[in-house]
């Protein structure tokens, strides 16, 4: 039998080899290469040699006011969308966690924003947010008079962040909804029955039974959404390129002004920040 297990192990290595090569070559190597690039003055032509300059890019970036503005935008964008997607997902999941006619169709409809290509959804929202004839301005300004005049929700840097946040919550809350609904359906009904016998109100049941059962899934959703939204590029850039979150800032540094070394340094800083957040969150919040 010894020979057989050796053969099995050998086959195991052969079968996993393509995966290891793909991830090593297209994820691990680029990450290390990126670190190397961040320490060099990178030539605009990728085929010409680069000059080592040490930590100079990092000093430049960290003393650049534009970087900190962008960092702040990223923090605002990520924190509001993480809270927004999770709360809306939780609310809708609790709402739909009952039997009613057409339930599976409703669930399918709610998933649509999450599966529609970003480019299509972004065009739809651009039309809604149009400063002149968009439905959003019409309702908010002309019908409800919440604002004194029409606002350019897509191009004004001050207001575009609201559009981007609404768009992101619209697109991503279905994911939170789906995960939380699955968890809700696994909570045993007898817990609620026992609470009802003891005379618990709806809110008490939610607070003392539902929320503790959801603690793990909500914790996981928050950390995943935080990581994803710190790195989020297309959903921001395709709706409004005036919202300079860090990924958009990196993109423009690298591919609009060809400052590859500095852009690489910013992405190293972004990664370090996200990594720090993960370590803190896993230890202090999830208590693993």
């Amino acid at each position: 039998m010894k020979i057989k297990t050796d053969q099995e192990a050998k086959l195991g290595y052969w079968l996993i080899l393509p995966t290891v090569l793909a991830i090593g070559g297209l994820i691990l190597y680029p990450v290390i290469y990126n670190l190397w690039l961040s320490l060099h003055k990178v030539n605009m032509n990728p085929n010409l040699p680069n000059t080592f300059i040490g930590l100079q890019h990092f000093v430049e970036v960290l003393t650049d006011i534009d970087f900190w503005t962008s960092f702040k935008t990223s923090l605002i964008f990520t924190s509001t969308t993480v809270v927004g997607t999770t709360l809306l997902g939780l609310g809708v999941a609790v709402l739909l966690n009952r039997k009613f006619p057409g339930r599976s169709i409703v669930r399918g409809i709610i998933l649509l924003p999450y599966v529609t290509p970003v480019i299509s959804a972004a065009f739809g929202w651009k039309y809604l947010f149009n400063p002149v004839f968009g439905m959003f301005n019409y309702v908010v300004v002309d019908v409800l008079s919440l604002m004194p005049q029409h606002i350019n929700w897509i191009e004004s840097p001050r207001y575009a962040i609201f559009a981007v946040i609404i768009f992101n919550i619209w697109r991503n809350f279905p994911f939170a909804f789906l995960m939380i609904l699955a968890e809700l359906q696994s909570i045993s009904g007898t817990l609620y029955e026992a609470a009802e016998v003891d005379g618990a109100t709806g809110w008490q049941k939610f607070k003392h039974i539902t929320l503790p059962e959801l603690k793990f899934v909500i914790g996981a959703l928050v950390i995943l959404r935080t990581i994803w939204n710190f790195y989020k590029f297309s959903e921001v850039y395709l709706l409004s390129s005036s919202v300079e979150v860090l990924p958009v800032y990196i993109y423009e540094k690298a591919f609009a002004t060809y400052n590859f070394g500095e852009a690489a340094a910013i992405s190293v800083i972004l990664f370090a920040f996200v990594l720090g957040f993960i370590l803190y969150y896993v230890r202090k919040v999830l208590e693993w």
Partner: protein
Amino acid sequence: MVGKKSLKNKIIFYVLLMLVLAFVLIPFITMIGSSFKPDQEQTALPPKFIPNNPTLKHYKGVLNPEIFPFLVYFKNSLIVAFLSAGIGVVISIFGSYSFARLEYSGRSIIQRGVLIVYMFGGVLLVIPLFQMISKMGLFDTRTSLVITYIVQTLPVSLYMLGNYFRTIPESIEEAAIIDGCSRLEVIYRIVLPLSAPAIVSVFIYAFMIAWNEYLFASVFINSSSLRTLPLGLNQLFYTQHYIWGRMMAASILTAVPVIILFLSIERFITSGLTFGGVKE
């Protein structure tokens, strides 16, 4: 009293449900309505969802290669998504079988190593990958996109297929081995046919991710004849094709294939997602 209370609850429930559905659907209704509006109605005030005089001219325009390169972009997206999903599925069939059934030292380390892909978003990889792609002479080729997309979906594909493979009774595989089949024959003759629905779902998932991708495409592709749909449509938005109806028709034609594919595998994907594995 109970009847009254439950009626009130029912009304609250349906009002909330309508609000949720309105929030979800209004962008879609806007897109569909606008894609059928004649030009003068696009910018009419007050805005309306439903056109007064619906027209098919935007769809005809989008599908006419002489005015709009939609079909070129569609073809490019199809090629790139099909190849990257196909190659990705083959790699993940091998990899997930190795994780699910074969024993060797280092397996759990590799298995956990795959998860680190989650830690790196596309924006961290785009600069070094652009440099690598240029050095390899792959700049402005579809190949550059295919190889980049393969790896983006691997963790989820490995996870979903691995879970599925573990549900196949091991005794069937052992019986086949005793009958003289090799492990590779077991994969080919037993595991693959039994896992067809899972394999199709993983393929469609990878296809959707590739169909949707914008960041790498915008950096790796230069020629307009090689642009994929997200890239091509975004660039057209800033040219003379800035005709809302046409952009909306193009957006809908981009979304429809993906939505149909998704609905065909909804049940499998949603149960796969809720077991915890996903990558955006």
